[in-house]
């Protein structure tokens, strides 16, 4: 199982990174491979590549604000799970529901 995610929040200094870590932890706990792109105040870090997106079994969007470069995910809509950063911080396992 390969999980990828994108996180973003309004200020881009706290929720973005806490949500990313929550996703990483939840996946590690289950032994899944994971990569999370953060779109914070400093811009995009750990950018997801075409190959990452193609290989992913689950794409988690934990975003309060519009995701940068959304066009990359065209054609993979059925793998996308949408959640709020707050939601994933409070209950990380909910990404697998």
């Amino acid at each position: 199982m390969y999980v990828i995610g994108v996180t973003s929040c309004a200020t881009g200094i706290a929720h973005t990174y806490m949500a990313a870590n929550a996703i990483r932890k939840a996946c590690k706990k289950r032994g899944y491979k994971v990569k999370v792109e953060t779109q914070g105040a400093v811009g995009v870090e750990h950018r997801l590549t075409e190959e990452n997106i193609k290989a992913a079994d689950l794409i988690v969007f934990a975003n309060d604000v519009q995701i940068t470069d959304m066009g990359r995910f065209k054609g993979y809509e059925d793998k996308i799970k949408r959640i709020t950063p707050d939601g994933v911080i409070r209950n990380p396992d909910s990404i697998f529901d």
Partner: protein
Amino acid sequence: MASEKQSVGRQIQSALLTGVSYMLPFVIGGGILIALGFLFGTYQVPSVEPYGSTFASTVFWLGKGAFSYMVPIVAAFIAYGIADKPAIAVGMLGGFLAGDPWGVGQASGFIGGIIAGILAGYIVLLLKKIKLPKGFESIVPTLIIPVVGMLIEGCLMFYVIGAPLSALTAALTNWLNGLAGGSAVLLGIVQGCMLAFDMGGTVNKVAYAFALAAMDANNFAPMAANFIGSMTPPLGIAIAVLISNKMGLHKWNAEEKSSGSIIGLFTGAIAMVTEYAIPYAVADPLRVIPALMAGSATGCALSYAFGLTMMAPHGGLFVLFALNNVPLFLLALIIGALVTTVLLLALKKKVDPEDEVEYLDDDDEDDDEE
């Protein structure tokens, strides 16, 4: 492009936060430069001196320049949040019009910018549905959306919603400026509860946007309350943890009560980054969040009661010079924080002694395999 699966409410909410997110650097940079201009010019000079005539006026007008992008940028990126890249230009035009650039009596400021942004987003979303024969599709984003989109947006702004929006803005501004006594204190309580509720999240940003909108209308009282309400949560927790450590009350686990975490909390308090309170709230939300809300509400209410004003839009203790009364500000801040402290110490349960021993750093996060 927000997916069709999202509800309209969620789509607009996400778009508003997107707008605020892109707007913040303009507001914070511009607002603090304006305040610095006042500081250098001893609060009188810069606004009546032309750009470049003195250093103070130069700094002041630089800040004004950045601040004047606030409404166009928020409108542009609300539109972007709804209909992606092609909506930016249409939204920005709408936001520019909300500033009444040609003086036709249609100034609607921040509220106008928000409405203009939403409008532009949905106009572009509709225009994107136009299907042209193969080979001509590229005309939609390059030609039709900018031209037709701006025409519709501009005409709706001028002929339909410009006048009512500016009347609404004027009414709200008058109401805000006329607030005094009990109703101002009530506003403070609502503002404080919202600021502390999610510590930098969605509800907090709505309250912050309100303070910014007031600032845009030259009312600086809500921003002073915003400062206090954003700073009391980390400060109140920090004091509570220190007391618990000193007196051996065992209210927090090893990680929460470590000196690193306490330094983080004080940083949050000084720099006005409420987010430092989040880990404490996530660990025990039902006890911690009410304590934070009560402290923030108290601080904000006192801010209005003391008649505090703050001319900088962000910056915590680093921008104290932009306040009208520093001692009373600190008093309100400390009283608010102490309310949080007392409630936390009363509400929090003792932790399991095992959790207190040491922090096991077993999972080094990170490491995304490439």
